[in-house]
C-alpha cells in the first residue's frame, strides 16, 4: 500500500481539505503573482527574453561535453579540484571522502536542491559529520526533520506561530509572533556556526564554461558566508547547470529573480572561480566542485524531453500549478515537486513508480506559459503518460476502450447501450458511492451526470 502513487493519493486527500494550509499557500502565492507580474512588465520584451534564454540553454546542452570540459579546465587551472560523480552514491562517497581526509567534523550548508536529491545530509550525519542548514527556510525544515516544501520557499507551509513554537522547543528562545525576531533568533544561532565550521557545502545555480566559475543566487548572504568563512568549500553541481558565456548571466540572473520571487535581481548573485588566490586575504584554502550526472544523461538522451534540462529551478511552474496549489509540496514525495518534478522524476527515479505524477495534472498549460526557459512542460506530462502505457500496457483498460470504440462506432449498438443506461440509472441511485458501486472511483467525490433523455440527433430533428 505504500507505493509512491498511494502515498500521493492519500496525502493529497488530506492536504486538499486542510483549510489552514490552503489559506497559507493561496496568500503566499497570491502575493507572489502580483510582484512577479510587476517585474515581468518592467522588461522591454519578456517573451523575446524567454526565447533567448531557451536558445542559450539549448545551445549549452547541444555542446554539453565541450562546455563541461571548458568549465573544468578553467576551474582546474586556478586550483579547484573537480570530481565527476556518475550517480548519487558516488557523489556522497566523494564528499564524505573529502571531509574524512581532512578530518572535517562540522559542515555549514547553504541551500542546494541537488544535495537534497542525493540525500547528502543523511550520508554526512551517518559518517559522523554534523550538518547545519544556513538558509532560514532550510534551517526551519531541518529542525522539523522535514524535506523542503518548495524549490524556492522551503518553509512556505508554516505559520510564524509554528516556527516560534519550533524555535522555543529546539533553540530555547522566547516565543514571539514577529517574523523579524524569529529571523534574528536564527541569525544568532547560525552566526557562530559559520566561524566554527570545518567545511562549507553549496550548490550552484549556474556553471559558466567560459570563465570556469559557479554562480550562486541567494537573498540572505548565507551562501556568501558559507563560501567565505570555512577553510574548505565543496560545491555540488548538476551537469546541466552549464551556461556558455559570462554575459549570459546578464539575461539569466534577472529572469531567475523575476520568476523565482518577483525581484528585479536577487540580493546576492556571486561567482566563485577558485579557492583563495595568491594575494587574496580570505576564502577557502581548498575548493572542490563535484559534477553530478545521476541520470541527467538519460534525460538528455530523450530528445523529445531534453529541454527539461533547461530548468533553472525558479519554481515558477509550481507557483502557478493548480495541482501544486491544492496538494502542496510534500504530497509529491519527491525532491523536485510541481510540474517540473512530475516531468523529471520519472526519468531520475523510474517511470513506472512515478508515472502517477504525470496523471496529476489538468493539462492547463499554466506551467509551460510560466517557464522562463520555455520547457514544454504540459506536453512532457502527456509524453510520460504515453511512454508509461507503452512500456507497461494495461490490458483491461485497453479492452475497455476497444469495447467503447465498437459501441460508439455503431449507432444501433449505441442506442441499445443508451436504453440500458437509462433503465439502470434509477437503480444506480440506490447504491451510488457505496462499496458495490461499479462507478465508485468517480462517484466517491463527484456526481455522475444523468444519461440524456434524448440524443443529439433527436434534439436536432425536433428543435423548434
Amino acid at each position, binding site marked *: 500500500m505504500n507505493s509512491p502513487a498511494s502515498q500521493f493519493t492519500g496525502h493529497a486527500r488530506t492536504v486538499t481539505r486542510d483549510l489552514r494550509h490552503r489559506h*497559507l499557500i493561496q496568500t503566499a502565492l497570491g502575493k*507572489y503573482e502580483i510582484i512577479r507580474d510587476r517585474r515581468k512588465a518592467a522588461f522591454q520584451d*519578456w517573451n523575446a*527574453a524567454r*526565447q*533567448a*534564454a*531557451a*536558445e*542559450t540553454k*539549448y545551445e549549452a*546542452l547541444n555542446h554539453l*561535453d565541450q562546455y*563541461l570540459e571548458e568549465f573544468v579546465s578553467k576551474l582546474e587551472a586556478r586550483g579547484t579540484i573537480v570530481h*565527476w560523480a*556518475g550517480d548519487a552514491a558516488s557523489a556522497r562517497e566523494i564528499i564524505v571522502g573529502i571531509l574524512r581526509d581532512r578530518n572535517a567534523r562540522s559542515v555549514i550548508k547553504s541551500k542546494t536542491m541537488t544535495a537534497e536529491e542525493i540525500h547528502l545530509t543523511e550520508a554526512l550525519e551517518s559518517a559522523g559529520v554534523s550538518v547545519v542548514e544556513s*538558509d532560514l527556510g532550510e534551517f526551519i525544515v531541518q529542525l522539523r526533520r522535514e524535506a523542503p516544501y518548495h524549490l524556492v*520557499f522551503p*518553509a512556505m507551509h508554516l505559520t*510564524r506561530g509554528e*516556527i516560534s513554537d519550533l524555535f522555543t522547543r529546539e533553540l530555547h528562545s522566547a516565543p514571539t509572533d514577529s*517574523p523579524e525576531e*524569529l*529571523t534574528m533568533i536564527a*541569525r544568532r544561532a547560525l552566526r557562530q556556526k559559520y566561524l566554527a565550521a570545518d567545511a562549507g557545502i553549496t550548490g550552484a545555480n549556474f556553471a559558466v564554461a567560459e*570563465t570556469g*566559475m559557479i554562480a550562486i543566487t541567494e*537573498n*540572505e*548572504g548565507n551562501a556568501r*558566508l558559507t*563560501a*567565505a568563512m570555512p577553510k574548505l568549500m565543496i560545491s555540488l553541481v548538476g*551537469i546541466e547547470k552549464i551556461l*556558455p558565456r*559570462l*554575459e549570459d548571466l*546578464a539575461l*539569466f*540572473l*534577472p529572469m531567475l529573480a523575476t520568476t523565482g520571487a518577483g525581484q*528585479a*535581481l536577487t*540580493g*546576492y548573485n*556571486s*561567482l566563485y*572561480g577558485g579557492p583563495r*588566490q595568491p594575494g*587574496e*586575504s*580570505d*576564502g577557502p584554502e581548498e*575548493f572542490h566542485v563535484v*559534477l553530478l*550526472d545521476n541520470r541527467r*544523461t538519460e534525460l538528455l538522451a530523450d*530528445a*523529445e524531453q531534453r*529541454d527539461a534540462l533547461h530548468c533553472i529551478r525558479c519554481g515558477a511552474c509550481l507557483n502557478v500549478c493548480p495541482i501544486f496549489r491544492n496538494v502542496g509540496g510534500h504530497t509529491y514525495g519527491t525532491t523536485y515537486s510541481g510540474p517540473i518534478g512530475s516531468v523529471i522524476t520519472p526519468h531520475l527515479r523510474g517511470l513506472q513508480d512515478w508515472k502517477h505524477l504525470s496523471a496529476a495534472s489538468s493539462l492547463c498549460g499554466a506551467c509551460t506559459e510560466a517557464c522562463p526557459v520555455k520547457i514544454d512542460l504540459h506536453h512532457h506530462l502527456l509524453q510520460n503518460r504515453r511512454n508509461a502505457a507503452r512500456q507497461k500496457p494495461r490490458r483491461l483498460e485497453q479492452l475497455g476502450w476497444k469495447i467503447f470504440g465498437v459501441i460508439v462506432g455503431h449507432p444501433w449498438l449505441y442506442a441499445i447501450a443508451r436504453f440500458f443506461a437509462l433503465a439502470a440509472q434509477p437503480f444506480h441511485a440506490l447504491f451510488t458511492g457505496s462499496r458495490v458501486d461499479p462507478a465508485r472511483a468517480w462517484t466517491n467525490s463527484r456526481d455522475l451526470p444523468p444519461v440524456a433523455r434524448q440524443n443529439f440527433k433527436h434534439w436536432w430533428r425536433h428543435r423548434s
Partner: protein
Amino acid sequence: MSDREKILGRIREALAVPAPPPGHAQEGREHPASQARRWLPAVGESFDEQIALFRANAKDLKADFHLLANHDDLAPRLRQLSQAEGWKRVAGHRGELSRVACDALNLPVLFTDQSYDPPALEACDVGITECDALIAQTGSVLVTSRSAGGRAASVLPPHHVVIACRDQLLPDLPAAFDLVKRKYQPNYPSFISLITGPSRTGDIERILVLGAHGPKKLTVFCF
C-alpha cells in the same frame, strides 16, 4: 574508464539524436543572450537618468544612497553616520578611497586585505569597502575579492558601507559583465558578486525581513 570519461561518453551518445530547437528559434542566431539589452528593463542614456534610476532602485531595496557634491563631503558624512550608530570598530581595506574613509573615523580599523582574524571581523560594526561598479538598472553594487577587501568584509559586519565615484555608474547588467571581462580577464578574482540591497529573507510567511545573515544595512556613498 574514469567517471569523467563515462559521463562524457554518455553525453556524446545522448546527443547523437538531435532535439528540435525551442519555440520559434531563428536559424543560425548565435549567442542569443548577447542582445539582452534589448529585452531587459529599459535604462535612460544620460548620467542624470541613470543616477535617478539607481536612487529609485536603492530606495525600493531599502538601501541608503547618498550622492555627494565632492570627495571632501565623505569624511563628515561618515563621521555623522558613525556617531548616529555608535560604531566602535571598523573593517576596511587599503584601497585609495576606503583607506581615506577609515582614517576619517578615528576608530580602530581591521584591514581585511591581508589575512585577518575572522572573529575580529565579526566583532566590527561596519565594513567599509570600495566597489567595481554601481548598476543603475537594478540598484546593484558590483564587488570582487580584489576591489572590496576579500570575500567577507562586505557580508559579515551588520552594516556595509560602499564608497564609489560617479564614473563607476554603469547602465545595466550587460555593461557590468562586460566590465568584469575587460578589467580582469584572464586573471579573474576568485569571488565576484552583485550586491542588490541589504541581506533579506521572506522565508517566514513571505514577509520581508532585512539582515537575515548578511548586513542589515547597506549604504552607498557616491561622489
